[in-house]
């Protein structure tokens, strides 16, 4: 814990992430304005006391849209990483427990298969086939997260399984399920959370990318990626319109990456200690 407080990337990453989460939570109960309300008379206004970050081409309040956009980004990250984490961890642990078996082979080959496709192109393909939208985008991003977590879980589990306390658990009469749940999970969880943090950053970026292309989050739900796209037309007249969502995306990705790096450094020495 003390080490955590002295670690710069952890500190910066954790505080930034906390701010973003806080803003997203506040947006549930309060935003400066209704983010969807259009105002013909106050289009493309620069920042002022009422519209802190100005308005867009429909006169909507940018600050409010960014706040709700944060909620959208976090939700996408949470669900997509949740899908990858859950399915990936379970598959990876089972593959490791039955290392070398048919199950292991099938799981690992299936994951190679998913890995072999370029993630973004395939996500675009999926969304073109099954229709654009937030739900499909989240599912596509989640799908590509599964192999990442599965590999990590498999490797970490294989390592834990060689240790004597696993043998001791078998001698105690524990079955496979209880060994995985009681001994493997607590010992690989730290690593998995580090991975989750990094994947979270990537998921936010992926959603922004897909929404920018118009196949992710659909109107009227605000998304940073779509705000960026909307801003393109007015880049010369109102560059701030692009800068704000761009910064929101960059800062969030940075925040969760730093958090992941920091966590990795903090957790790693403890894993090496026998």
């Amino acid at each position: 814990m003390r080490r955590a407080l002295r670690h710069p990337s952890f500190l910066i990453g954790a505080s930034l992430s906390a701010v973003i989460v806080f803003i997203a939570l506040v947006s549930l109960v309060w935003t400066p304005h209704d983010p969807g309300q259009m105002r013909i008379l106050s289009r493309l206004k620069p920042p002022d006391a009422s519209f802190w970050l100005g308005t867009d081409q429909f006169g909507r309040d940018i600050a409010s849209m960014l706040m709700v956009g944060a909620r959208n980004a976090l939700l996408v990250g949470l669900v997509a990483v949740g899908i990858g984490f859950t399915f990936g961890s379970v598959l990876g642990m089972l593959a490791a427990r039955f290392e070398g078996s048919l199950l292991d082979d099938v799981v690992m080959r299936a994951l190679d298969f998913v890995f072999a496709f370029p993630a973004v192109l395939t996500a675009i393909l999926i969304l073109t086939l099954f229709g654009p939208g937030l739900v499909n985008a989240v599912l596509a991003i989640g799908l590509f997260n599964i192999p990442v977590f599965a590999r990590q879980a498999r490797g970490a589990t294989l390592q834990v399984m060689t240790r004597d306390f696993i043998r001791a658990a078998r001698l105690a009469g524990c079955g496979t399920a209880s060994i995985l749940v009681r001994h493997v999970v607590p010992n690989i969880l730290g690593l998995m959370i580090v991975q989750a943090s990094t994947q979270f950053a990537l998921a936010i970026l992926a959603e922004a990318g897909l929404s920018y292309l118009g196949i992710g989050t659909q109107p009227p739900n605000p998304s940073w990626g779509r705000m960026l796209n909307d801003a393109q037309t007015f880049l010369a007249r109102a560059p701030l319109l692009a800068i704000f969502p761009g910064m929101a995306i960059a800062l969030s990705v940075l925040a969760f990456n730093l958090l992941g790096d920091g966590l990795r450094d903090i957790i790693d020495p403890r894993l090496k200690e026998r």
Partner: protein
Amino acid sequence: MSAILDVVDLHHRYPLPRDGIFAQRQYVQAVEGLSFALEEGKILGIVGESGSGKSTLARLLVALETPQRGEVRFRGERISGLREARLRPFRRQIQMIFQDPFGSLDPRMRIGASIAEPLGVAEPGLDVAGRRRRIVAMLERVGLGEGAMMRYPHQFSGGQRQRIAIARALITHPKLLVADEPVSALDVSVQAQILNLLLDLKLEFGLSLVFISHDLGIVRYLSDRVIVMQHGKVVEEGESEALFSRPAAAYTKTLIAAMPRL
């Protein structure tokens, strides 16, 4: 004369990593044709240099590994090669202590939960209070207090962890205990304490003991019978005193000659 443990022509090997997918698989023969028996209530010492297959033998004896050939019998019943479910009734009767007290306790599990684990499987009917009483009594018996229950392994020294490992191994009142170099990783000053604790508990619990070590002095002090192993095979076997005073095999003589004298 009845044997608690019979070992018949035991073989075990480990596959080596393959050089290439078309290369022939190579193996390390860790245990090759071991046969012996352990009498009820006795201590069998097993000595041999590092790499002679002692730990492999230990894992075969407690059915953590399935032998490539041969079998292990506990009170006349074959336990080697059984499925985990068929093995369960034997698990509580056959326990093991590992060499490395830093690796044999789950770093993420409190000591109380760790000791409760075998008890929960062996006696699922025991209520929370009863289970707690048993754990506390066992902890006190190995020289630790009730306070240890809520703590984690890293809060204890090597000797204390080995005491915890002993408490965990004996909580189900096993009949056979396999101790794989239980004091090798400990400071010399602590070794005697742990050995004496083991000896006391052996009498108290009516244990039969397989005691593995590369320290001939300790094996001589503890054992009724001794087996000398080299390259996975038995080089010599005999009553402890006879074997140490009149070794027959050349290998045993070299080992004894290499012993530090007091």
